[in-house]
């Protein structure tokens, strides 16, 4: 059902025959990537470690230009950093000298048009940050410093920081990798709800096949370095998805199938 919606939607990210080599001797980090991500689609990229998943992120966000091929995001060829992107990583990278609220304000201090309106609309921006924190269950922690929060709470704040400027495209690089299993599942649901509410496009890089299957519309499997897209798998699970679904047979079958592909890659 979702895929039907997705394929009729506008193209958000388009890779055409993209190679990227960090230096001339090292060879390609990723190679011959062709894929299309629709607006509002939730994409997960899985693969063995060192397969260039993070490189893929750098290309989408415009932090790196491709060596060959072209990357188009939101209708324009990517030539530099895109302001419509929000990013979060495995490390929450919150600034320890700022409160949670002020950490959320950071993107607004950089991205236009917020940046110019900062003085006049500060109260309004604070309100917006508070509202966002509330949606991830962090109300009451606005004035706390990051080191006073638990790992899971820090990661929630980090995701809020990535979303505060209403990006069209959210890039997540193993955001739940450092969390314990329970907190991780809790944050899956937080992300699921944020996405259902706002329907931004998500690219989630992860090692966790259950995570990919639970959250994504489409899962891509990458090969070992040089990274190529080996498999595109649409996840046929109905939305809204409940955590219970992760114990269903369909779910297990999908995870199993993905696992087999990864296993084959690791053997070669």
């Amino acid at each position, binding site marked *: 059902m979702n895929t039907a919606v997705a394929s009729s939607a506008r193209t958000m990210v388009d890779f055409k025959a993209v190679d990227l080599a960090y230096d001339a001797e090292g060879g390609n980090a990723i190679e011959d990537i062709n894929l299309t991500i629709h607006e509002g689609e939730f994409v997960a990229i899985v693969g063995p470690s060192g397969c260039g998943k993070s490189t893929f992120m750098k290309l989408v966000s415009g932090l790196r230009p491709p060596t060959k091929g072209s990357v188009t995001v939101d209708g324009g060829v990517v030539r530099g950093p895109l*302001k419509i992107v929000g*990013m979060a990583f495995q490390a929450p990278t919150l600034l320890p000298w700022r409160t949670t609220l002020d950490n959320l304000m950071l993107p607004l201090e950089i991205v236009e048009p917020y940046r110019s309106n900062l003085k006049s609309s500060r109260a309004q921006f604070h309100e917006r940050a508070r509202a966002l924190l509330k949606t991830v269950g962090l109300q009451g922690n606005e004035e706390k410093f990051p080191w006073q929060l638990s790992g899971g709470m820090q990661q929630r704040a980090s995701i809020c920081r990535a979303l505060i400027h209403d990006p069209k495209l959210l890039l997540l690089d193993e955001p739940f990798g450092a969390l314990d299993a329970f907190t991780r599942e809790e944050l899956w649901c937080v992300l699921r709800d944020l996405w259902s509410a706002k329907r931004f496009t998500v690219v989630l890089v992860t090692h966790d096949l259950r995570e990919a299957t639970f959250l994504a519309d489409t899962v891509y499997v990458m090969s070992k370095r040089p990274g190529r897209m080996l498999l595109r798998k649409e996840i046929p699970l109905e939305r809204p998805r409940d955590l219970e679904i992760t114990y269903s047979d369909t779910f297990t079958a999908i995870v199993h199938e993905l696992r087999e592909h990864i296993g084959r890659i690791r053997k070669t």
Partner: protein
Amino acid sequence: MATRRNTLDLLAPWLVIAAVVIVWELICRVFQVSEFIIPPPSSIVSSLLEFPGPIAWHSWQTLWRTVIGFGIGIVVGIVLGFVIGSSRFMYNAIYPVMVGFNSVPKAAVVPILIVWFGIGTVPAIITAFLICFFPIVVNVATGLATLEPELEDVLRSLGATRLDVLIKVGLPRSLPYFFASLKVAITLAFVGTVVSEISASNDGIGYLMMSAGSSMRMGLVFAGLLVISVMAVVMYYFFAALEKRMTGWATRGMEAPT
């Protein structure tokens, strides 16, 4: 129990000082050490009481020279640290020269300064500056250069300029390093001033010790040492308090996570 521990913590340095003074006094008396070699604390104190005016005046000379040299050191240290820390190229280009420069004994530079500027205030300030700016440079540069790459990605993907990243993240991040370096630098600055005063001045604690030494008034020489130490300790704790106030977030760990 907790308060008793606190009082003990507060008293500990004074107890150590008292113990050192008592042992020192006892050794001098028991072994009848000559005053010309090591004067006992009692004679140092009596020297202090004998010449309070001149000692205070010479101390003041040393203090303001040190502070001015230190101030110049802070400005130059921040600027150089900023330049070195914000670009890998500058880091590689300037760092070796800085290390070479820093390994020159500053006492050896004083004669050159005398040729250039004569004796007195100017060489003392310059020596204090030369000896104290290096740790500031290194610390500021380190703070700026050790930015997490992920954080830089987050900001740069939003279209932040290099200057944005430096101001929003680099500078606050390097503040704890900067304040830590001030504590080291202020004590070094005192060393610089006094070294210069010893060989090229008509006033200041360095000069006082020099002239007292040549007339064999060892009590007064040691009184000079004592005054320098006290000034340095006071300045050290001033900057330690400032550090705590400005960058308390960096020395956390007492609060339990909620």
